[in-house]
């Protein structure tokens, strides 16, 4: 079993001042490493509108590479505006995953729209940055990963990777909406696609990770890292209903693969769980694992899926 030492909460949106777009939540951390600092992208929200509805933005905070608890800089603006009228990302850009591709940085993100019969739909967008990830331009006004026959809605949670010159996109796809007495809840699973150019994607068209909790288990944030001859995936999973508290809420799961395509789920190995008390005592979710200066770290969300920010854990040993 892996052993993660929790180091505590590392960024809390409540600390931010003077940014009306950053009032609540800091979700789905994704790291880009620079010589002096690490840039952590996350998604956040202004206050709710008159109907209690949120939009979401993505932005970043720079942490001192030598001391990850020291904030060097907090972005002045979101990295992307919301999409135009009727587009897939008109009401939110969450979550985001970044990758340094030569001189540029590419971002894949979930774009949110609002529907009538169900509360929302999500599509995967793509954007590029030529200023080291401070601002991004959309590759187009539509999504980069289309819905398909077996992936009808909620394409979200993209994690962009490049292994052996091939692009990999790990993401989630909705399977169905549960009616739930007029308050529909989605069921989604982890899927993947590959691409030669990052734009045109070939979907594997199958669920990568078997369910454990129940048939309608929801899985998210499929974060993949290569280490010691294997591909490791950390993800989160929860019950389909009544998931907003400790009982049914998110936990972090683990799977491994020799080839990026065929995965073996082995949650017993994950080595991280909720705490007895504190900011991550009810749920842990949206893991992102990265290596920095010889150590392996995980950033993750705690209670209320990141309402109070994200925390850090350090691996004791190697993956």
């Amino acid at each position, binding site marked *: 079993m892996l052993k993660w030492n929790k180091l505590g909460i590392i960024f809390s949106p409540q600390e931010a001042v003077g940014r009306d777009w950053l009032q609540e939540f800091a979700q789905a951390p994704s790291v880009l490493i620079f010589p002096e600092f690490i840039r952590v992208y996350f998604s956040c929200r202004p206050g709710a509108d008159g109907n209690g509805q949120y939009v979401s933005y993505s932005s970043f905070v720079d942490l001192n590479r030598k001391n990850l608890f020291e904030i060097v800089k907090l972005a002045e603006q979101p990295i992307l505006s919301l999409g*135009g*009228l*009727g*587009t*897939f990302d*008109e*009401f939110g850009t969450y979550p985001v995953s970044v990758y340094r591709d030569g001189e540029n940085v590419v971002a894949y993100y979930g774009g949110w*729209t*609002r*529907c*009538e*019969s*169900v509360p929302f*739909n999500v*599509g995967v967008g*793509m954007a590029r940055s030529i200023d080291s990830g401070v601002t991004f331009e959309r*590759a*187009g*006004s*539509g*999504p*980069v990963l*289309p*819905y*398909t*026959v*077996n*992936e*009808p*809605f909620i394409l979200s949670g993209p994690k962009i990777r490049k292994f052996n010159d091939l692009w990999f996109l790990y993401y989630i796809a*909705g399977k*169905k*909406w549960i*009616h739930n007495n007029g308050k*529909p809840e*989605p069921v989604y699973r982890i899927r993947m696609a590959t691409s030669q150019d990052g*734009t045109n994607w070939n979907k594997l068209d199958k669920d990568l990770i078997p369910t454990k909790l129940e048939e309608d288990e929801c899985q998210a944030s499929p974060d993949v890292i290569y280490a010691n001859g294997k591909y490791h995936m950390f993800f989160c999973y929860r019950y389909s209903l009544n998931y907003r508290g400790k009982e049914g809420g998110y936990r972090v799961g683990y799977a491994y693969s020799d080839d990026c395509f065929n995965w073996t789920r082995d949650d017993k190995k994950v080595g991280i769980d909720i705490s007895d008390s504190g900011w991550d005592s009810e749920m842990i979710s949206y893991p992102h694992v990265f290596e920095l200066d010889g150590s392996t770290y995980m950033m993750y969300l705690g209670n209320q899926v990141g309402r109070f920010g994200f925390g850090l854990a350090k691996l004791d040993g190697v993956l």
Partner: protein
Amino acid sequence: MQWKKLGKIFDPTIHPAFKRFVGYAQSPQALVLSDRIRIYFSIRELDKMGKFLSQISFVDFDLTLTSIIATAETSVIGLGELGTFDEHGIFPFSPVIIGDAIYAYTCGWSRRVSVAVETSTGLVISKDGGLNFERLGTGPVLTSTLDEPFLVGDSFVRFYNGFFHMWYIFGTKWDYFPSEDAPDRVYKIAHATSKDRINWIKESRQIIESKLNEDECQALPTVLYFGNKYHMFFCYRYATGFRKKMERGYRIGYAFSTDLINWFRQDDEVGIDVSPGNWDADMLCYPNVFQCGDKIYMVYNGNEFGKYGFGLAVLEE
């Protein structure tokens, strides 16, 4: 080209088999069978909130298109499940015979909040001669992508030169136009190809130039090969005022191609227009062109987007 109008041939508001609906027989599309011509169309019912749902039905005509010999018992495909792209209606529905089966490309509708609707193209298959269809899956086969951000639909598929060709439309913008209360949309005709009928490669460009202005809306391409050319008929209108103002409403346009790549728009050649004082005095829309024996026909909708049915025309020259 000259079309001879043969009049309205079906009115859903007076036919006894369609009493439970609230009218509309939109986008008639013909399937020529050995003993009949089956014409599928979208017909509307009301949901619990009083909003329209388009269902797919059909009427069967004899091979001369002079009398109705049968009508559909039920919708040939139900609407999609909660949250799917075709939950709130299918319009239009485009059949094509491929091998032993009848395939149909659907345009599924789902309602949105900031704009009225989003659409995508689905694929359904019938193994019983076109009476009942089943989905390939709950999602679409053609939908929005980087450069075609929304409103993909109106797909029409034919097999030519070793490939399946799809002509369809995609949205280029939603906008609040000064004269209107709600957002209006602009859409254009595009083309994709496939080897397997399911996976499509978009050409990713508008293939028919705009004529009225940049915001011209182009819809429902239908293509037929005859006389050594590919002929495309479609309908087009202004982006606003098209519901009430006759001069801004749908008309039928025409383009031709010899290579399926370059299309030349020649609306002057279309040979069909509105008929003052008649059922199609205000608009002409949703054409479907097909051959039966040695005759080439067009079925199409007239006033109010087909609320009172569809009519027939035959090509004279």
